[in-house]
């Protein structure tokens, strides 16, 4: 089940990652990227990891480093990092996915479903989110739906 929140007000400051770009750049190293993360990079950014030691990637726009991944991709990689390293930031209960496009959101929801990750997703936009697949969603701890087309 994916727990969605339409506002960050449900969480305290130390419980939510708001700036995913910054969190990723400060915490996630290329060496720590797991198979899951590498797959996400390929799916969302079409980025191929060329050198895991230095984080060199090949994207449709050229060769660069993992710091240039999209914020949507970084959001998912942050989630993976949190799940693989729960002791690092034990207070975190939610992640702000407002900077994710629908393609990144779908990958994020798939990951949460697949791993049964217990994390709240704050989403303050509705930009084509109904294109995300049907699954169990709990909205603001109150409304259960399976299709985001019917989210009020």
């Amino acid at each position, binding site marked *: 089940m994916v727990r969605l929140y339409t506002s960050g007000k449900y969480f305290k400051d130390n419980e939510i990652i*708001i*700036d995913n*770009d910054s969190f990723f750049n400060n915490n996630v190293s290329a060496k720590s990227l797991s198979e899951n993360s590498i797959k996400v990079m390929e799916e*969302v*950014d*079409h980025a191929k990891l060329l050198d895991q030691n230095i984080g060199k990637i090949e*994207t*449709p*726009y*050229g*060769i660069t480093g993992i710091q*240039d*991944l*999209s*914020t*949507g*991709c970084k959001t998912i990689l942050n989630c993976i990092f949190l799940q693989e390293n729960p002791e690092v930031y034990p207070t975190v209960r939610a992640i702000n996915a*407002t*900077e*994710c*496009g*629908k*393609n*990144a959101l779908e990958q994020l929801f798939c990951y949460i479903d697949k791993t049964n990750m217990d994390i709240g997703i704050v989403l*303050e*936009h509705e*930009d*084509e989110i109904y294109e995300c697949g049907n699954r169990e969603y709990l909205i603001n701890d109150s409304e259960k739906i399976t299709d985001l087309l019917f989210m009020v």
Partner: protein
Amino acid sequence: MRQCYDWQSNVLKFTDVNGNKYNLKFRGNKTIVHGDSATGKSLLCTMLKSYINDNNNASFKPYNADNIFIVSKDNKDKLSLQKGKLIIIDRAELILDDQMVEIINADRGDNRYLIFLRKPMGIELSPNYFGTLCKKDGELQLEYECYVRGWA
């Protein structure tokens, strides 16, 4: 030296060092770009920044970006001082505040705006001026999503 942004034609056009071509034809004075992750939004800003933030002699740059102002957390207080610029705001969810939104809404054409934003934050703009970035004919272009005459 060529301008990246031509005020007369309202077109942002340049080729970056990796050979990626950008050709964004704007419809009006304000544009909100949203859509999928990893479509090149932040990449465009990063490339333009390199033409602006440079200690070198101006003649060593392939493009003149003097009429572009890229807003960040560090320079957003200078927004109200701009005139005759294409103002670009990437990751606007994290940068825009009420005062900035007021300035943008009251600007009737002194500046033009390209805002990368998914969350509704009070920018007064009709659906005619919402678009996405897409690759077409080997270029990164702006694709508008709808046109209704009365929404101009």
